[in-house]
């Protein structure tokens, strides 16, 4: 099914697409049909810079277990460094 559900958030950071590095200002997170991954539904993340147009996007499609593992790894990584390191930003 097409879920229609989308989490939208503002983000600060950069990523690399097929051509070059780009800054991100926005992210969309949702579970829906993937474009490329071979699964019925995937956890999809669009990291975007809408000011640069719809093509300014890095897209990720992850199987649900992989998405959870990645999310947990992100949280563990953030928790493993001294708070003052994160406070620099």
């Amino acid at each position, binding site marked *: *099914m*097409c879920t*229609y559900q*989308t989490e939208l958030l503002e983000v600060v950071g950069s990523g690399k697409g097929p051509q070059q590095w780009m800054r991100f200002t926005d992210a969309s997170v949702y579970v829906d049909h993937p*474009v490329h991954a071979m699964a019925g539904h995937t956890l999809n993340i669009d990291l*975007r810079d*809408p000011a640069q*147009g*719809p093509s300014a*996007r890095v897209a990720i499609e992850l199987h649900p277990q992989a998405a959870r593992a990645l999310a947990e790894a992100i949280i563990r990584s953030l928790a493993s460094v001294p708070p003052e390191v994160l406070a620099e930003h």
Partner: protein
Amino acid sequence: MICETVMFDGHGGDPIEGYAARSLDAAPRGGVVVIHHMPGYDRGTKEITRRFGAEGYNAVCPNLYWREAPGAAPDDAAAAARAAGGVPDERLVGDVKGAMAYLNGLPNSNGTTATIGFCSGGRQSWLANGSLPLTAAIVCYGAFIIGDTPEGLPPRPSLGHLAASMSGPLLGLWGNDDTFPPPADVDTLEQLLKDAGKAYEFHRYDGAGHAFFAVDRASYRPEAAVDGWEKVLTFLAAQLGS
């Protein structure tokens, strides 16, 4: 047959893009509006549009995300449209109306037009047939036509009341293993059409779930898809007269 990108006026007079596959033969024929699914105006949907062209119909798929992302790759356009909140029902109706006008304006049009939609496009095909003077409509596993959307999902307006205003006969193709829509919702839709005295034809496939027509997905079920295509073409031949 020629396949080309065309422009026509959609909802509110906005120019939108469409992908057309139409016959160069002068003999009159019906038109098919192909409503793309939520992932967008993609390669698979254009292939479906070409198939209708190859079968002798004039077909067009409106790019429902043209306003958000003109000229963008279909997947980027779908992401931009999703972030902007998706396609409002009123706009969909206006865009399908524009696609109908494009088809009916072709010199070899016989004045008949049908819609076909898959997944979210199935819901929109039902919506169009309840809102516009279509000759017929085809709904392939349209989710959230009726019933409550699951907790956590944004509610979609229930369209059950449109059963009473269906313009043309409706062909529905459903997978019995689908959870959105579940078989119970398909039963309800059938009852709504029956109660309204509307012409319809439903086919339900065992061993098939959502998106069983999608040839490049794990959900593809060749037996259901091949039979489903036969049902679609038989239905269109009867309704559109070509």
